[in-house]
C-alpha cells in the first residue's frame, strides 16, 4: 500500500511534518515558515536543575507537538492524535490508517533510528516523521530532515515509536482529519493570532527562565560557569548550548531565521511594511546567535579560557535578549 505523497525537506522536523501533512490534504499555501509562525514556534527556555545528557536543559522552540496542534487549530482543521499503551494496538491503528491511504505523523526517538549516523543518535525522543505507506515488511518513511525518503521495518519502527525516557512518544500518531481548502482570509487570521501568541510567550510569561528573560537568565549563568563548574564542565555546557541551538532538526539560531522568513511571507497576506522591518531584527538576532556560537566554540575547543571570554559570551546573549525584546515589542504594537 502506497499513498501518493510528496516529500519536502525542511529545516526542522515538526515544521516539516506539519507542512507536508497539510499540503497533502490540500492546504497549498502552507510553507515551513508559515507553519512555524502560525504555530508560534519561536521560544526560549532554560530549565534550571534539570539535566539533559549531563548538561543544561535549554530549548529554542515550543514544546514538541504544539506547532502541529496550533497550526491546525488556527486554520480550523480537525486533528486526530492518539497515544497507545500497547504496541500491538499502535501497530494495528497505524496499518489501518495507511491502508486507508492516510499519511500520518509519528513522534519517534532518534537513538534507535537506524538511518541516522551514529554521531547524532542520542536519547532524544521528540523527533517527527511521516509514515506514508508499506511495502512488504517495510514502512515508507518521510523524515523531513532527510533529502530523500527512507524505510523502516516493523521492529525498527516499533522500537523508535516506543522509545523511553523524557518525552517518550508512546506510539504517538497524529494527522489532519479531512481534506480542506483554506482561504486566504483564514491564513491572515492565523498569522495574526500566531504572532500575538508568540509575543506573549516571549515577553509575558511570568518568571525569569522563559522567553526573552530566559536568554538574560542564561547570560547571567554563563558568567559564573567557569568559577562554579570548573573549565572542563563549563566547556561541556557551552557545547551543549550550541548543540541545542544549531543541531540537526533543532534549529536555534536557525529558528530565528525561519521566523524572519515567516514575517516576510506574511507580508503578501498582511501588507504592513512593519513586518518586513521586524523581519530584519530577527535576522540580526539569528546572526548574533551564530556569532555567540563561534565565541562558544573558541572556549570549548580550548582556544579561549579566560573569565573575560565567558563574559564576552554572556554579552552576546544580553545583546540577543535586547534585539528579541525590541522585535516582539514592535510586533505587539502592530495595529492589525
Amino acid at each position, binding site marked *: 500500500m502506497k499513498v501518493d505523497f510528496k516529500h519536502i525537506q525542511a529545516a526542522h522536523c515538526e515544521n516539516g511534518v506539519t507542512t507536508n501533512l497539510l499540503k497533502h490534504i490540500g492546504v497549498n499555501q502552507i510553507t515551513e515558515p508559515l507553519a512555524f509562525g502560525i504555530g508560534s514556534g519561536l521560544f526560549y527556555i532554560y530549565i534550571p536543575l534539570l539535566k539533559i545528557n549531563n548538561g543544561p536543559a535549554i530549548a529554542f522552540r515550543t514544546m514538541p507537538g504544539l506547532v502541529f496542534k496550533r497550526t491546525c487549530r488556527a486554520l480550523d482543521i480537525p486533528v486526530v492524535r492518539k497515544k497507545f499503551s500497547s504496541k500491538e494496538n499502535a501497530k494495528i491503528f497505524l496499518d489501518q490508517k495507511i491502508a486507508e491511504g492516510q499519511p500520518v505523523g509519528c513522534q519517534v526517538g532518534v*537513538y534507535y533510528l537506524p538511518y541516522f549516523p551514529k554521531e*547524532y543518535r542520542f536519547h532524544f525522543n521528540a523527533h517527527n516523521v511521516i509514515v506514508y505507506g508499506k511495502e512488504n515488511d517495510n514502512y515508507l518513511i518521510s523524515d523531513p530532515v532527510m*533529502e530523500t525518503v527512507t524505510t523502516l521495518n516493523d521492529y525498527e519502527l516499533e522500537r523508535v515509536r516506543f522509545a523511553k525516557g*523524557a518525552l517518550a512518544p508512546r506510539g504517538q500518531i497524529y494527522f489532519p482529519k479531512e481534506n480542506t481548502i483554506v482561504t486566504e482570509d483564514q491564513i491572515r487570521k492565523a498569522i495574526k493570532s500566531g504572532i500575538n501568541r508568540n509575543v506573549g510567550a516571549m515577553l509575558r510569561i511570568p518568571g525569569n527562565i522563559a522567553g526573552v528573560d530566559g536568554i538574560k537568565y542564561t547570560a547571567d549563568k554563563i558568567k559564573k560557569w567557569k568559577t562554579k563548574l570548573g573549565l572542563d564542565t563549563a566547556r561541556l555546557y557551552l557545547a551543549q548550548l550550541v548543540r541545542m541551538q*544549531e543541531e540537526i532538526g533543532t534549529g536555534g539560531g536557525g529558528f530565528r531565521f525561519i521566523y524572519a522568513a515567516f514575517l*516576510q511571507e506574511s507580508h503578501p497576506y498582511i501588507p504592513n511594511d512593519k513586518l518586513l522591518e521586524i523581519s530584519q531584527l530577527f*535576522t540580526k538576532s539569528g546572526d548574533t546567535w*551564530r556569532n555567540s556560537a563561534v565565541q562558544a566554540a573558541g572556549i*570549548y575547543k580550548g582556544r579561549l579560557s579566560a573569565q573575560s571570554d565567558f563574559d564576552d559570551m554572556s554579552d552576546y546573549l544580553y545583546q540577543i535578549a535586547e534585539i528579541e525584546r525590541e522585535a516582539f515589542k514592535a510586533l505587539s504594537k502592530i495595529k492589525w
Partner: protein
Amino acid sequence: MKKKEVPQDPSSLNNFTKEVCYAVDETGKYTTDLSTGWSVKSSALNVAWEDIENRILQAKTKVLNGEASPILFYMEQKLMDITILSAYTGFFKWTIKRHLKPNVFNKLSDKKLKLYAEIFDITIDQLKNIRFNES
C-alpha cells in the same frame, strides 16, 4: 545570514543528508539553501562525544576493578543514565543501582539478563562475560 554565508564545512552529515538553512539573497529576500555542515557545530558534537568516551572509559575501569557490574559499562556505551534505563527495563531506579553491584549482578536470573541484553543490543553472553578488546 546571507545566502553566501551558509556554511559548507565537512561534517558527520556527509553521506547522510544536507541541512536546509534559511538565508537572505542579494535582494534581502529569504530563501533556502542546503548546508553540508558547520565546523562550529561539528566541534560541539565532538566535545559531547569526548565526554561520552570518557564516561565509557571510567565505567570500563570500574568493571575491570570489580567495582561495578557490566551493566554500568553498557549503560554508558548506550548513552543512557539510570533514569532512561529504568524507563526501558521497567525496573525501579534503586533496583538498577543494585544491579550495578557485581555480587548482585552475578545472581541475576536469565530473564532479567535477557531484558538488559535486548535493550543494549547484545547477547546474554556478551553481558555476562564482558570482553573489552572486542567492544
